[in-house]
């Protein structure tokens, strides 16, 4: 069945199809409509789920964590200030290895106060130990949330997952979304219960851990996060077999064969970049696109292989790590260092909702070509569109 849905509605339908049992959320713009839609499903009886009213995003995360530790499948939504507010509990959730799934509707952080899209909110949580998936359209939002439960709940992983899509550009814009049948999703996503809070087997959870054990726990946590990268590819294939849509794991290429200048980005800008690459190819340019679907864990080895033939790599970042540059620019340089000496051009753009169109990406492409022709070494990072 095909429906006309915005990103928030797609996320709510994904939660319904995944048979989410607990929703603990605090409303925040632009993510709140996901919550409204799920509570509507609950009210009309099309979804059996407990909605927990909380007084803050910090409590929302704590409630979702507690529900998951009791064995329930939990979901929540947030973005920007809310995500920053729950940061402390994000670390508890990943450290306690609880597979909560959260939709993050990316929005700029204050100050100055903003309601508009960019990735600064989620990049700020890059060390939180969560799996971070980015979606380019509303169909991918629906499909990724369903996949996120299977990925996070896998015995080899057991970690929480953030599924990211941008405010307004995706959350409030309608697109055709294919709705998979419930029976197919039930077969793809069996319910996994691993209660830690068990009256028959009492445990002291999250006890004070000394220097002799803390580091070993963290080693296991990081190893599990790395395993999630490989597993996402397998899960995407399995989902493709069920629905006919395979989003291709951690990273995918577009027109990379013989590509000399490769644009690398994530989120909604991927769709824009696809059109820009088509336009450049039509004009005889050897342009390509690398889509980062999984930002954490960062698929460094796959990225290396895929970028091997490139003459220039262009990182398009809708975020700024103040004083260091764009997160993708930094990751790409780290992945490629010592492997190839391809220059990485790092652009900061689209912050706080500033629009980035096809013509902007073709302009950047031209700038990069000029830089290559002049043999200039690229700046650490540069701001585009001021």
């Amino acid at each position, binding site marked *: 069945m095909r429906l006309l849905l915005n990103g928030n509605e797609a996320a709510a339908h994904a939660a319904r199809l995944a048979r989410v049992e607990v929703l603990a959320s605090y409303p925040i713009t632009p993510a709140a409509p996901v919550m409204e839609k799920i509570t509507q499903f609950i009210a009309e009886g099309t979804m059996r789920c407990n909605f927990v009213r909380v007084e803050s995003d910090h409590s929302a995360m704590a409630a979702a964590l507690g529900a998951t530790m009791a064995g329930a499948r939990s979901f929540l939504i947030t973005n920007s200030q809310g995500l920053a507010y729950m940061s402390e509990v994000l670390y508890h959730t990943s450290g*306690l*290895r609880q597979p909560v799934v959260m939709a993050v509707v990316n929005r700029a952080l204050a100050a100055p106060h903003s309601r508009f899209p960019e990735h600064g909110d989620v990049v700020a949580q890059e060390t939180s130990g969560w799996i971070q998936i980015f979606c380019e359209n509303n169909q991918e939002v629906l499909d990724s949330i369903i996949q996120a439960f299977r990925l996070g709940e896998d015995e080899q992983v*057991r970690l929480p997952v953030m599924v990211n899509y941008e405010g307004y550009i995706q959350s409030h814009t309608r697109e055709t979304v294919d709705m998979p049948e419930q029976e197919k999703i039930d077969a793809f996503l069996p319910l996994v219960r691993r209660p830690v809070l068990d009256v028959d087997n009492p*445990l*002291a*959870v999250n*006890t004070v*851990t000394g220097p002799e054990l803390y580091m*070993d*726990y963290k080693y296991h946590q990081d190893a599990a996060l790395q395993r999630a990268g490989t597993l996402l590819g397998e899960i995407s294939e399995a989902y493709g077999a069920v629905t006919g849509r395979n989003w291709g794991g951690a990273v995918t290429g577009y027109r990379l064969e013989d590509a000399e200048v490769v644009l690398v980005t994530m989120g909604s800008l991927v769709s824009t970049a696809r059109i820009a690459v088509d336009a450049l190819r039509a004009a005889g340019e050897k342009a390509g696109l690398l889509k980062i679907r999984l930002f954490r864990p960062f698929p460094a080895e796959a990225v290396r292989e895929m970028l091997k033939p490139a003459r220039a790599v262009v990182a398009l970042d809708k975020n700024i790590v103040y004083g260091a540059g764009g997160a993708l620019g930094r990751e790409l340089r780290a992945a490629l260092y010592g492997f190839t000496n391809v220059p990485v051009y790092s652009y900061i753009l689209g912050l706080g909702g500033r629009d980035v169109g096809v013509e902007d990406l073709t302009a950047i492409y031209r700038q990069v070509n000029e830089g290559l022709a002049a043999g200039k070494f690229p700046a650490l990072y540069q701001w585009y569109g001021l």
Partner: protein
Amino acid sequence: MAAKELPVVPSARPGTMAAADMSRLREQRPVIDMGKCNLCRECLLYCPDAALREDKNEIKVYLQFCKGCGICALECPTQAITMVGEYAGNRGFIDK
């Protein structure tokens, strides 16, 4: 060097803390004058570490659990408990 095998969820079985010796945390310990004690058990109720037990009409201190907080001495209605320093040696500068 390999990482130690650990439970996936950081956790401990009940009784894990009871196996740990806490006596090195202590600067002072309670000494009970059974001549003053009337076995009212207030100290047992207040002790945050369950380090006090009643045994054959006598209150005993389990020193591996006692952290020397002094709450028992403060709460004892008959002032039967005195906190005694664990270290009785020199303090401050030691002249060579």
